[in-house]
C-alpha cells in the first residue's frame, strides 16, 4: 500500500478535514456572483456548484462513518453527485448556506472522528458501486483529499 494508516496519518487527515470549511470560506469570501458562476474546467461545475457539492458529499460521508461504527460492515447508500449538483439550489443558492452547513457538519464529524481509536479506522463499509469493503482509514484519506481537490478548483480558478 502506498500509504501507512497509522495514528499520525489519521491525525493529519482529521486536521485537514477540520481546516477545510475555513479554507473554503476564506477562498470564496471576496468572490462576486459572476466569479462564483465561472466553471473550473470546460463543461465542469461552477465554483458555486463546487462549494455546494462539498457538504453534499461530506454529509453522506458523515453518515457512512457513523454507520460503519454502529453497524457490522454496512452496505452504504450511494447518491448521484452529478444530479445533486444540478438541483436548483445547488446551482443558484448563495454559498453561505453551504459554508455554514459544512462548518457545522465538520465540527460534529471531527468531534466524532477524534473519539475513534486507530483500530476503529479498520472498520469497513461496502460501497455497492465498487462492491468491495472500504476501511474508514482509507475513506478518511479519501475525504481529506476530496476537500483539498475541490478547494484547489476554487483557488486555481480565481488566480486566472
Amino acid at each position, binding site marked *: *500500500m*502506498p*500509504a501507512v494508516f497509522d495514528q499520525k496519518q489519521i491525525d493529519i487527515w482529521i486536521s485537514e478535514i477540520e481546516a477545510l470549511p475555513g479554507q473554503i470560506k476564506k477562498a470564496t469570501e471576496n468572490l462576486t456572483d459572476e466569479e462564483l458562476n465561472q466553471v*473550473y*474546467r*470546460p463543461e*465542469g461545475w461552477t465554483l458555486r456548484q463546487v462549494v455546494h457539492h462539498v457538504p453534499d458529499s461530506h454529509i453522506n460521508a458523515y453518515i457512512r462513518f457513523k454507520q460503519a461504527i454502529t453497524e457490522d460492515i454496512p452496505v452504504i447508500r450511494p447518491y448521484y453527485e452529478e444530479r445533486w449538483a444540478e438541483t436548483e439550489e445547488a446551482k443558484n443558492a448563495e454559498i453561505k448556506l453551504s459554508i455554514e452547513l459544512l462548518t457545522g457538519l465538520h465540527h460534529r464529524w471531527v468531534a466524532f472522528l477524534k473519539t475513534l481509536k486507530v483500530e476503529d479506522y479498520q472498520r469497513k463499509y461496502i460501497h455497492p458501486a*465498487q462492491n468491495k469493503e472500504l476501511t474508514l482509514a*482509507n475513506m478518511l*484519506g*479519501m475525504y481529506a*483529499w476530496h476537500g*483539498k*481537490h475541490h478547494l*484547489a*478548483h476554487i483557488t*486555481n*480558478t480565481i*488566480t*486566472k
Partner: protein
Amino acid sequence: MVEEIDVIILITLLNYRSLHLIKIMKKRSYISIFVLLICLTGCQKEETQVQSPELSDFTLTAVRVGQPSFTLINPKSKSSGAFTFKTSDTSLITIQANLVTIKKSGTCIITAIQQAAESFRKDSITATLVIAPRLVPLLTDFVVPEKKLNDPPFILTPPKSNSNGEIIFKSDNAAVATIIGNLVTIKGSGKAIITAYQSQSGIYGAHSISANLVVTDAVVAETLTDVDGNIYKTVKIGSQTWMMENLRTTHYRDGTAIPNVKGTSDWGIQSNGAYCSYNNNLDMSKLYGYLYNWHAVNNAHQLAPQGWHIPTSAEWTILYNYIGGDRYFGGKIQESGTSHWINDTGASNITKFTGLPGGKRNGDGTYDSIFYDANWWTATANSTGTASYYNLYVKGYIEIAESSKNLGYSVRCIKD
C-alpha cells in the same frame, strides 16, 4: 302376425306426427303397414332437412410459423348454411371465426362444419394443415477486424441477413472486449469470440454468427534517454508516441542545470524554471519523476529531451479523445492496482501510459496529494499567470484544468 298395438308402437317411433293415420287403421294386415310406411316416407320428405350439401373443395396449402394470420375459405357447398371451423390441435393454431393464427409447427386437421339450412342437413368436411417451422436466416459477411490493445472503441458492422430480426452482439471474453450496443471497447490483449445474435422475425427464426476478435499487445516503442542519462520506456498510443514514465531530468536539453528549489517559501516565488522531488525526498522522484513549475516547461533551454517535446493542450486533447473523450475514461491511462494509487478503481491502463499519482507542490511550497493525484503540465499558457494541466485523480477521472504557473506538477513528453 303383427298386432294392431305393435303397429302403433312402431309408427310412433318412426314418426309421432303420423299417429293419427294409424289410429284410423282397423284391419290387422301387412298391407296396411306397407301403406302406412309409404305415407310416412312422403311426410318426412316434405318436413325434414335430409339433403346433403355435398361439401367439397376444402383444401389448405402449407403455411409457416411466423406468417401472419390467414382466413379460411369456405368449402364449396350447395347449402347456404353458416360455416364454423375447428382445429384438432389448439396448441398449433387457434381459429376465431375463420381467422387462423399460427402458433407452432406441426400438422393438424381443420374441420369445416356447415349448419343445416333450408333442405340441407348439417355436414362437415376436413382438411389437413401442415405448419412448417420458421426458416433459418442466412447470416453472412460478419467480420471483426484485428485490433491493437491501444485502439479506441469501435463500431461493429452487423452481418448481412435475409431476416429483419434485431441483431445484438456479445463478447465471450470481457477481459479482451466488452460490447454495449454495437460499440466494442477493448479491455486487453487476446482473443474474444464476438457473436451476432439475430432475433426471430416473421418466418425467420433466431440465429447467430460468430467471428474472432484478436487483440494484440500495445506497441511499446523505443526507449528514450534524457540528458542526465535516464532511460524512459515509451509507447505508441494512436498517432502519438508518449513517454511511459514521468520526466526526471535535472538538466535542460542543452545541459543547463534546472534549479532544485527545496525551501517551502522559495518555491512559489520562482519566476524561472525550477524542479523538486516530492517532500524533497529523492526516492520519490525515482518512481514518480520530478515536479516542475511551468517556467521550466516553457523554457528556452528546452525541458524535453532531443526529438521530444512537452505536449500542448491540443495534443493532450488528442489522447483524451483517443481514450473516449470523457473524464470518466482516465483509468485507461492510469496504472492498475494499488502499488502507487491509494485505491484500486479498476484502472485498465489499456494504453500502457501508466499514469502515476505523483501529487503536486502548491504555490505556498507545500506538497500535496501523492497517491491521489497525477497532474501533468501542458505547454499551453492561458494567461500571464496560468497554464493548462491535466489532472488524473484517484477516482479514475481525468480533467483538464488551469492553475498558477508556480505550482509543481509532473511532466510527460511526446515524440516530435
